[in-house]
């Protein structure tokens, strides 16, 4: 283990990972922990995906064929919880672990032992949550929002869900503290804040966002627990409480959570698009400011999820205006990406395909976002399939496409092997087609009046539901290609150069390291001239 008593000695002996499987339990290496996070996220993607496919199988045609309605509700609830907390968030933490030290020229994360702990806490929290399936009364079935009174109605699972949320929160907050401390203290000399890659910036802001809102969520579910088991009435009108109070607390966390997922993905796309356009990111500083404003605005818009609860007119209007404002910085980001591509020299390797796919589909999700932000129109859209379509366009696209892009982008660097480009392109196109076939029809279902979270539906919704289910299976099964390609890359991919992508050595510090990088990197900080080379600094002086 790393000795902290004599850091100078430590520099001298280049030790590798611990032997055998214990390496993965005790590791404090940012690359190992990054890998653990990514593998965990991939596993959870399939668990959450199985829930989704069971849902879509039940909805393939009208009538109940496969599952009891209560179990169906458990599936929708757990699908969301597992995807958000088990798959997407850990995937971004995985990239943060792998890449932030390499991007800022640091030898590791600032708090390596806490890093290990936050991963293993996450695993136990995930297992605890999944264990509720095997309890009497089953897994939580009130939707991932856990609205009372429904969520605490006769539920045995509440203490487990609440404790699991606490653990997930502890894990995320420890991870966030680690990221903030690393970024603020461990940057190589010359790597000023405004020279950091945008992925690092988006994670810095996301980490602050996580620390700000997760405790509110933890408090809200704790109040659920005491309402359910200790006789309090925070959310019970009969005892002087208010069920809508929970919704305010939940969405104070829940809306920023959307940006906790999407901001790092903005960072990934801002890293990948320049490489394949062979041109530095357009409007770097406005990207940083846009990220900051989105994060700030995301904390004052929460009640747009509650336009139908009958809040006072002034509240309804305020939350509509504030929500619409988010379109401005988000638009800036999209324009900047396109300006980066403008007059570039573009090639469409798979990372770029997924990034362009992201920009296209996420913008569509942004358009429906503008629609649902209009309070009076939301009285129609709210809790219909239109909303389901909207947030999958933003969250599935935001939570997976950049993750796939980044995996293909850095996998050759991590492993020293090239992935199979043809298989990867097949993965992209099947995902793209499957995704749109799944979620485009859901817009029409919602507009036509189909509520969300129902296991069965009236006959006029049958055709679109069938299309959606077919799309879901294409989308789900095509992820097996992704897994196969990763395994194939590790085992037998062609060796790659250090730069991997043409001109990438000018695009980031990591491309100036060997492929694969040694177990410990940047034990001596990179030269300042190297930092200037990979940022747009020189070109600014033009």
């Amino acid at each position: 283990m790393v000795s902290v008593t004599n850091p100078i000695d430590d520099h001298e002996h280049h030790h590798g990972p611990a032997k055998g499987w214990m390496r993965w339990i005790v590791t404090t290496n940012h690359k190992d922990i990054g890998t653990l996070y990514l593998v965990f996220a991939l596993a959870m993607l399939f668990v959450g995906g199985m829930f989704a496919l069971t849902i879509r199988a039940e909805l393939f045609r009208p009538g109940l064929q496969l599952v009891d309605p209560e179990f169906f509700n458990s599936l929708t609830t757990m699908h969301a919880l597992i995807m958000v907390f088990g798959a997407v968030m850990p995937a971004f933490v995985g990239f943060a672990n792998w890449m932030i030290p390499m991007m800022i020229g640091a030898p590791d994360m600032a708090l390596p032992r806490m890093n290990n702990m936050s991963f293993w806490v996450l695993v136990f929290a995930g297992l605890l949550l999944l264990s509720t399936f095997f309890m009497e009364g089953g897994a939580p079935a009130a939707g991932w929002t856990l609205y009372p009174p429904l969520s605490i109605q006769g539920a045995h699972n509440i203490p487990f869900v609440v404790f699991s949320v606490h653990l997930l929160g502890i894990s995320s907050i420890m991870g966030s503290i680690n990221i903030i401390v690393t970024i603020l203290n461990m940057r190589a000399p010359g790597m000023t804040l405004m020279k950091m890659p945008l992925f690092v910036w988006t994670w810095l802001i996301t980490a602050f966002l996580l620390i700000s809102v997760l405790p509110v969520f933890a408090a809200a579910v704790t109040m659920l627990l005491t309402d359910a088991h200790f006789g309090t009435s925070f959310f019970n009108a009969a005892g002087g409480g208010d069920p809508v109070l929970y919704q305010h607390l939940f969405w104070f966390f829940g809306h920023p959570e959307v940006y906790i997922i999407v901001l790092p993905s903005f960072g990934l796309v801002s890293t990948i698009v320049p490489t394949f356009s062979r041109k530095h990111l357009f409007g770097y500083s406005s990207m940083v400011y846009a990220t900051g404003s989105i994060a700030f605005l995301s904390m004052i818009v929460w009640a747009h999820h509650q336009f139908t609860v009958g809040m006072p007119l002034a509240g309804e209007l305020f939350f509509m205006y504030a929500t619409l404002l988010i379109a401005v910085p988000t638009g800036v980001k999209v324009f900047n990406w396109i300006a980066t591509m403008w007059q570039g020299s573009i090639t469409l390797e798979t990372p770029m395909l997924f990034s362009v796919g992201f920009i296209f589909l996420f913008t569509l999700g942004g358009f429906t976002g503008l629609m649902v932000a209009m309070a009076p129109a939301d009285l129609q859209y709210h809790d219909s399939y239109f909303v389901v379509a909207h947030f999958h366009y933003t969250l599935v696209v935001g939570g997976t496409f950049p993750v796939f892009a980044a995996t293909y982008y850095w996998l050759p660097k991590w492993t020293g092997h090239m992935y199979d480009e043809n298989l990867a392109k097949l993965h992209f196109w099947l995902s793209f087609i499957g995704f749109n076939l799944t979620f485009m029809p859901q817009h029409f279902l919602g507009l036509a009046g189909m509520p969300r979270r129902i296991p069965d539906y009236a006959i006029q919704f049958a055709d679109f539901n069938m299309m959606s289910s077919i799309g879901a299976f294409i989308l789900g099964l095509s992820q097996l290609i992704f897994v196969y390609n990763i395994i194939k890359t590790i085992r037998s991919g062609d060796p790659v150069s250090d730069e991997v992508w043409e001109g990438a050595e000018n695009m980031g510090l990591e491309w100036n390291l060997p492929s694969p990088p040694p177990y410990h990197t940047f034990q001596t900080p990179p030269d300042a001239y190297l930092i200037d080379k990979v940022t747009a600094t020189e070109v600014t002086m033009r």
Partner: protein
Amino acid sequence: MKRLQQLLAGIVLSGLGTVVHADYTLNMPVGVTELSRETYGLHMMVIYICAAIGLVVFGAMFYSIYAFRKEKHPVPATFHENSKIEILWTIIPFLILIAMVYPATDLTIKHYDTENAEMTIKITGYQWRWRYDYVDEGFGFMSSLKADSNAARQIDSGISPRKVHNYLQAVDHPLVIPVNTKIRFLMTSADVIHAWWVPEFGWKRDAIPGFITDAWASIDKVGIYHGACAELCGRDHGFMPIVVDVRSKEDYQAWLAEKKLILEQDNAQADRVWSKNELMVKGKDIYLSACAGCHQPNGEGIKGSFPAIKASPVATGDKDSHIELVLEGKGAMTGFAEALSPVELAAVITYQRNAFENNSGDLVQPAKIKEWLEDLGYDE
């Protein structure tokens, strides 16, 4: 096949941002109220704005991919900022937003204007049915999923939903209201949060236990309108549809008079002694619409969620505690004192005590329920 072509055409068109106008189920209904028409207008306005923005943004993106691909444009430019254009594309979206906000604000204010209503309907959400109270007339009734849909929707029912008329969209007692009348709807709930949504009226509103929310509609076309509960409310959330029967003012008055007459007769019935057979027949009806959702048609409940009625200590034990539980509720179960009439309560309790091989032989008379209700302080 033609159907499929239409579907595909619709998807392609809307994918391009071109909006499909057909009243085929691709778009929001224009609806039958002032609010719904204006909501539709706002919806279309935003779609057109988004389509225009999409054309420019995606146009620029795909043009770049085509024109600046490496084969054609091997040497990339080196610019990476331009303050003028960056300020411009911050300000222009802001101005577009302001243009959108004006009509949206007006319409929001209109939605909130529930004053000067000509009549009031109170809507109460129950797991999993609705209750409609005609506040000015002093009566109300429950509205549950119709029996044929309910039979077909059971897992492995063997009944094809396509063979059921208005599958999952029909109820036993629709809400009947007059046309061209400003109606104020008051929403609340007896258990968990529900939401009352009829797309043709242009809004949905949450029904929250312990609170009252409101909304309004003045429907300008006679007809039958369908809707559903829109807020997840537990196991049978998908099975509590809404049917509104909008009638001409004369037809509505006639319906009202008839309804009141039946009500009077029912009240008179509450004072006579009922036979076991009468109670069991009526009780079965009420059981299926009010109890079977949780306790199941066969009375066996669902393990871990809903206790069985069959051989239960309550239904086979002390009669008074059974009555009290049904009237006042317990834990997750709401009380039915106000939801059902004395005759209905007496019938359903009698049914529970004698069906499912419970065979207690006990009869509960409506008069007994009336005494209970007075003792508990419910004004009948």
